[in-house]
C-alpha cells in the first residue's frame, strides 16, 4: 500500500498493532500458566513446547534482561541492552550499505532494461527467478573470500561479505519493482511525450520516474527488509564479530545459564527491521506529492511481483 492512509486511520492501525502485541504477550503468559512444564508429546516427539522458566521465560524476565550486566561482575559493566544496541547499529550499517549499493545497481539495471528491450527479455526472468531461490545459501561462500581478496585495489574486508549479501538480496526486488514502475505509464501518456519530441531521458525524468514511485516504495520496503535479514543471516552463517547475528548465537549458547538473554538480540533484530522499513515509509511521506497516481493493480505489496496478478477492476465508466 503505497498510498498513505489518513492520520486517523494511521493512529488506529498503530493502536491495533499495540493491542496485537499485548495480546501475544498475554497469550504467552497464559500458555505458560496452563500448559505442563514438560510440554505435550506425541510418542517421543515434543509437539508443544516446554513451559518451564528455562524454556519459556516470563515476559518480565525478557524485559528485565536488557538491564543485566553483560559479563557478570566485570569491572566495566556494560549492559545486555547496550551490547544489543551497538551490535544492532553495526549490523544496520552493514545492511544499509548493502541496501544502498544494491538499490542503485537495481535501479540502474531497471533503467537499462526499460531502454533496451532485449535486455529486459533476457534478464527479467532471471531477476524474477532470483526472488524465488535461496540465494542466501551463498553467504558462507562469500564470507570465504575473507581477507584474502583484492578487488580493484581494495582489500576485501570481512564485513563486505555481509554487505554484499544484503546488496544482492536488495537489488532483485528493486530491479523488478523499478522496471514495473518505469513501464507503468499508459500508452496515452508516453505517446503524449513523443508528440512533444521528448528525449528518452526527459521521458524518464518527467513521466516514468514519477509514475514509478508507487511501485518503487513497496519494492524498497521489501529490499530493506531483505537487506536486514540478509545481513543477520550472513553474520550468523559466517560468525562475523560485532554484529547482531553473532550476538544471537553467543547468547543462544549461554541459554542454559540465562534463558532470557537470547531474546534481547532477537528483539534488537526485529527493531532493526522495523527501523529499516520505517525509514522507507518516511521516504514515502517525503515523496507525497506523487501519491495522486492510482494504486498499482492487485499485486501483493509485501513481495515481489512474480508474474502477472489478477487485475480485478477494469476501469469502465458508469454513466
Amino acid at each position, binding site marked *: 500500500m503505497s498510498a498513505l492512509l489518513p492520520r486517523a486511520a494511521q493512529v*488506529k*492501525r*498503530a493502536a*491495533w*498493532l499495540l493491542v*496485537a*502485541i499485548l495480546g501475544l504477550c498475554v497469550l504467552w503468559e497464559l500458555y505458560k500458566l496452563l500448559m505442563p512444564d514438560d*510440554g505435550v508429546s506425541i510418542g517421543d*516427539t*515434543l509437539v508443544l*513446547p*516446554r513451559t518451564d522458566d528455562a*524454556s519459556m521465560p516470563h515476559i518480565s524476565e525478557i524485559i528485565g534482561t536488557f538491564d543485566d550486566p553483560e559479563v557478570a561482575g566485570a569491572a566495566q559493566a556494560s549492559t545486555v541492552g547496550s551490547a544489543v544496541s551497538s551490535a544492532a547499529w553495526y549490523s544496520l550499517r552493514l545492511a544499509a550499505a548493502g541496501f544502498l549499493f544494491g538499490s542503485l545497481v537495481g535501479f540502474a539495471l531497471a533503467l537499462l532494461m526499460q531502454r533496451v528491450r532485449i535486455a529486459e*527479455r*533476457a534478464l*527479467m*526472468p*532471471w531477476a524474477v527467478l532470483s526472488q*524465488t*531461490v*535461496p*540465494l*542466501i*545459501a*551463498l553467504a*558462507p*561462500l562469500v*564470507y*570465504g*573470500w575473507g581477507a584474502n581478496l583484492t578487488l580493484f585495489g581494495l582489500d576485501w574486508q570481512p564485513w563486505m561479505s555481509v554487505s554484499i549479501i544484503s546488496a544482492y538480496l536488495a537489488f532483485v526486488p528493486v530491479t523488478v519493482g523499478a522496471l514495473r514502475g518505469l513501464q507503468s505509464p499508459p500508452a496515452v501518456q508516453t505517446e503524449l511525450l513523443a508528440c512533444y519530441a521528448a528525449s528518452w531521458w526527459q521521458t524518464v525524468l518527467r513521466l516514468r520516474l514519477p509514475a514509478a514511485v508507487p511501485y518503487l516504495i513497496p519494492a524498497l*520496503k521489501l529490499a*530493506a*527488509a531483505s537487506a*536486514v*535479514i540478509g545481513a*543477520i*543471516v550472513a553474520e*550468523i*552463517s559466517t560468525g562475523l564479530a560485532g554484529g547482531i547475528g553473532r550476538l*544471537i*548465537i553467543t547468547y543462544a549458547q549461554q*541459554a542454559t545459564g540465562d534463558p532470557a538473554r*537470547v531474546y534481547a*538480540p*532477537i528483539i534488537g*533484530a*526485529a527493531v532493526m527491521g*522495523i527501523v529499516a*522499513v*520505517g525509514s522507507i515509509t518516511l521516504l514515502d511521506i517525503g515523496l507525497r506529492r506523487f501519491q495522486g497516481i492510482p494504486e498499482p493493480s*492487485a*499485486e*501483493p505489496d*509485501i*513481495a515481489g511481483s*512474480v*508474474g502477472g*496478478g*489478477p487485475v*480485478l477492476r477494469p476501469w469502465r465508466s458508469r454513466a
Partner: protein
Amino acid sequence: MRRLRSAWSAAWPPLAFGVAFLALWEAFVDWRDVEPFVLPKPSVIWEQLTENLDIITRAMWATAQNALVGLAIGVVAGLLMAILAARLRTLDELLTPLSAAVAAIPIVALTPVLNTMFSTTSSIPRRLIVAIVVFFPVFVNTARGLRRIEPVHAELMRSYAAGPWTTTRMVRLPGALPFFFTGLRIASSTAVIAAIVSEYFGGLQKGLGPAITSAAAASAYPRAWAIVVAAIALGLVFYLAAVAAEWLAMPWRRLSVAP
C-alpha cells in the same frame, strides 16, 4: 504452432543470456586464474554435483521435508485465518497491522528461541519457523482477495436475493483464488529459504545449510557451490510446484482471450 513460436521467442533471450553467462564465467576463471575459494568454474561445480549426488540428495530431502511440513501448516493456518478474518472485523483489524510489522522483521531469528523451547534435536523448531514465515503472505493475500467483490457482482447477487453466505460461497471464495495462489507462490519459495536459514542456527546437521557450511569449513569450495546449486534447484522445484497448482486449480485462466 503460434503458441510454440511465441513461447520460443520468450524463452531464447534468457536462455541465451544464461549460457553466455556460464561460458564467460568459465573463461574468466581461467583467464584471471581465480582461486576456487573465490569462484570455482562452472564445470568443476557440475563435476562436484554429480560426484556427491547421494550426499546432496539426502541433504536436499532433509531440508525439503522441513520446508514441506512448515509450508503445509502455514498455508492451512493462513487460509483458515483469512476466512475467519473476513467474517470477524476485529480479527482482521488485529492481524493486518501485525502482518505489516512482521514483514519487516527477520522471523528466522526466532529459531534459537524455538530450539530451547523444544529440543535441539527436534525438527519442529525449523518447521514452525517455516510455518510462521509462510503464514503471513498466505494470510495477507487471501484476506485481501476475500475482502474484494466487484460492485457489479455484488449488485447481481443482491438482485438474486442471495444471502451473505451464498454470496461468499459463489462469488467471494472463487474470486479469492487468484489471490490465494499469489500468496502460495511467495510462500513456497520463502519456505525453502526459511528452512535453509533456520538450519544455520545449530541443531540437527542434516540439511543443506549445514552441508554448505561444513564444506566451506573444510575448504571444499567447489562442493559447497555444488550444494548451493542444489539448494537453488530445491527452491525452484517448490516455486514451480506452486505455479503448477495454480495452473491446475484455475482452468479458466489458461485460456486465451478471443478476438
